[in-house]
């Protein structure tokens, strides 16, 4: 839904930095306090919960503070298939999404650039899904797709790709919209084939959009549990780590297990994202 964040219409104006530190502090204090209380503290709470041990009473949802690091080993041992599956799904869906989104972003950002009306219509069509409940849309696929496909790896990945295409198209569009078309012309003037021009000029210049688009979809995909849940597009063999965290937290009230898996998920994502960003040479994007 973050499309306004990617709009490139406005250019940054050189602004002289000011020094009155107390004004900055006054402006920042309430918001930062809020984020410390409702974003940072919950992370710490998650880490503490992940080390808890069952209470002596043994009641459901009863845990006491402990330093039980073995929770991590137990979580990995029990749920590595779901963890692995989440990342395989997310990776596959990201690659398929990229193959679909890039041409669409290219169409809107380059091909129809000089027809503002057409560009406006296409952009509205891309963001239109945001205006209607994503749960209803995902449920709609359940009746559109043939019923023997529902509950398979295919249907879950299909749903993930569908849900996150706009999140890929918009940043890629922003990058391609900013691309100077004269560079493409210069490439073909120098006898480069269309494929070479794409590989050497267009793609490298649109990399910032590709990186943020793929990250913006890969991260939420790997934690998603709507597509893979049985009421939607999933089945018994498609459970993702998000489903496991949900059922441990909300149904069986195994809070330490849910917390441990959340931390593991987050750590794996951080490692993947850091590697990807370094490999793609986009450190300055973050």
């Amino acid at each position, binding site marked *: 839904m973050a499309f306004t*964040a990617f709009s490139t219409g406005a250019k940054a*104006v050189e602004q002289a930095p000011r020094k009155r530190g107390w004004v900055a502090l006054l402006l920042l204090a309430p*918001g930062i306090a809020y984020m410390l209380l409702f974003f940072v503290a*919950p992370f710490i709470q998650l880490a503490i919960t992940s080390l808890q041990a069952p209470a002596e009473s043994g009641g459901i949802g009863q845990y006491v503070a402990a330093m039980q690091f073995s929770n991590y080993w137990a979580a990995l041992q029990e749920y590595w298939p779901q963890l692995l599956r989440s990342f395989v799904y997310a990776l596959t869906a990201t690659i398929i999404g990229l193959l679909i989104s890039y041409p669409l972003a290219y169409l809107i950002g380059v091909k129809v650039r000089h027809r503002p009306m057409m560009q406006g219509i296409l952009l*509205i069509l891309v963001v239109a899904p945001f205006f*209607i409940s994503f*749960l209803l849309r995902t449920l709609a696929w359940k009746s559109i797709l043939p019923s023997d496909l529902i509950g398979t790896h295919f249907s879950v990945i299909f749903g993930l790709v569908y849900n996150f295409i706009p999140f890929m198209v918009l940043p890629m569009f922003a990058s391609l919209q900013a691309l100077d078309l004269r560079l493409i012309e210069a490439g073909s003037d120098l006898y480069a084939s269309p494929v070479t021009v794409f590989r050497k000029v267009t793609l490298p210049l649109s990399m910032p959009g590709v990186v943020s688009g793929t990250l913006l979809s890969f991260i939420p995909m790997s*934690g998603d549990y709507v597509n893979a849940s049985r*009421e939607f597009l999933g089945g018994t063999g498609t459970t993702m780590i998000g489903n496991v965290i949900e059922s441990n937290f909300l149904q069986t009230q195994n809070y330490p297990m849910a917390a441990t898996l959340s931390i593991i998920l987050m750590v794996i994502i951080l490692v993947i994202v850091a590697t990807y960003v370094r490999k793609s040479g986009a450190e300055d994007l973050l």
Partner: protein
Amino acid sequence: MKNFSLGKAFVPVVGAIALIYLLLPIAHVIVFSFNDAGRNNIIWRGFTLDNWQNPCGAPQVCTAFGNSILVGVVATVIATVLGTMIAIALVRYRFRGRSTVSLLLFTPMATPEVVLGAGLAAQFLLAGVEKGIGTVILAHTMFCVSYVVVAVKARVASLNPAIEEAGRDLYASPAQVFWRITLPMLTPGIIGAALLSFALSFDDFIITNFNAGTATTFPKFIYVSALKGVPAQANVLASIVFVGALLLVIIVQVININKQKRLSRA
């Protein structure tokens, strides 16, 4: 020559397929709002206007819808105020820990919702706070602040400080400069950020599910009733939101295009 034309057709063809992929489920949701479905809105059973005449006919659906609007409005108001203040500070002032603050605001957007939801729920559990609409508002405000900061920051960065300087040269007090120059110039960006924030909150399910307790929002209503069949009235309400938002965006686009045309003529 043949290859060349194939290459030319590739982008529009893939683009068209992608758009059909994106829009097909929307058409399905709208069409099935007219389904004479009774309880189970999965198979087409014939056209009816009943659902549209009585959108609150299904139990709970309008309560859930109302809750979503309430949560969206309150979370948006708080997040927009907090986020705008942070955005101004980040662009206009140099201070120690500035990059840490940026990171703190970026990270929620790069954290899977299931982790944010579980963390907050664990926090409320420890603090002994009972989950309900209040905790949903607190949770939504948190992730909306990040998006507001990103959206408003871009707007602040594009402001021309010369206009504010002119105000100061004309003896306006700092407060006058802010209320009469800075804020009005930021307004379009702030409205955009608020709309984004409301849309994010209104459609959020994962974080809500962890923090709502027994309270229901519109997405949670759909998730819970998915098992036994979502009533067609939910399709009606979703379609109304869709058409309304679409009209709003089209109007904004038309105004923008006209403005650009006028500017390019001048």
